[in-house]
């Protein structure tokens, strides 16, 4: 069964450094998403991406964040100048379409620890 994959599973970085989290969505999916979950809090939407551009983003997704689809398979989240409060689990998801009831398939997540 096709699945969303994410690398690395755990990333440790120093405050102020840049990190890139990588995702490989399911191959025939057209919509891609990033969510994050700070320990003990809700899973929060960050951004959605379709047709090589951002389709929606939350208030959390400020200039510190960017997304890219550098090739036909990868979908990346870049976090510049990381802060302690960026420590969280970051989930990538993908869906075939953006229609209401369409299922989003989630990856296993990348745990980001900012020291």
């Amino acid at each position, binding site marked *: 069964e096709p699945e969303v994959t994410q690398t690395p599973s755990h990333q440790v970085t120093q405050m102020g450094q840049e990190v890139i989290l990588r995702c490989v969505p399911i191959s025939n999916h057209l919509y891609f998403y990033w969510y994050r979950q700070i320990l003990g809090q809700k*899973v929060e939407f960050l951004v959605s991406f379709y047709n090589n551009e951002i389709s929606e983003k939350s208030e959390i997704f400020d200039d510190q964040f960017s997304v890219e689809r550098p090739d036909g398979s990868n979908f990346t989240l870049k976090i510049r100048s990381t802060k302690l409060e960026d420590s969280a689990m970051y989930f990538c998801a993908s869906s075939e379409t953006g229609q209401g009831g369409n299922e989003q*398939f989630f990856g296993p997540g990348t745990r980001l620890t900012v020291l």
Partner: protein
Amino acid sequence: AQSVSQHNHHVILSEAASLELGCNYSYGGTVNLFWYVQYPGQHLQLLLKYFSGDPLVKGIKGFEAEFIKSKFSFNLRKPSVQWSDTAEYFCAAKTGANNLFFGTGTRLTVIP
């Protein structure tokens, strides 16, 4: 603003007990509702979803949920839980936008 509430943070049940996990959403318009499950060490997986039509939705592994529009609720139920149902359960809603709004999750522990 849209939000999803799950009032049970941790539920502990014995095997064969019945389960009901509460989920309420706040949004006045058309909403799609989902229950996701995360087994220990695994991905978030879709259990079931409500898009339109019959408000009683059946999902995988014997789970079901009922959409009650007047109560803004989408509670998850299972008549008889098993040890393998031990997991974290997330209710989520999608409105006109494409992003999901999640509740805080409910951890279910089933004791053999």
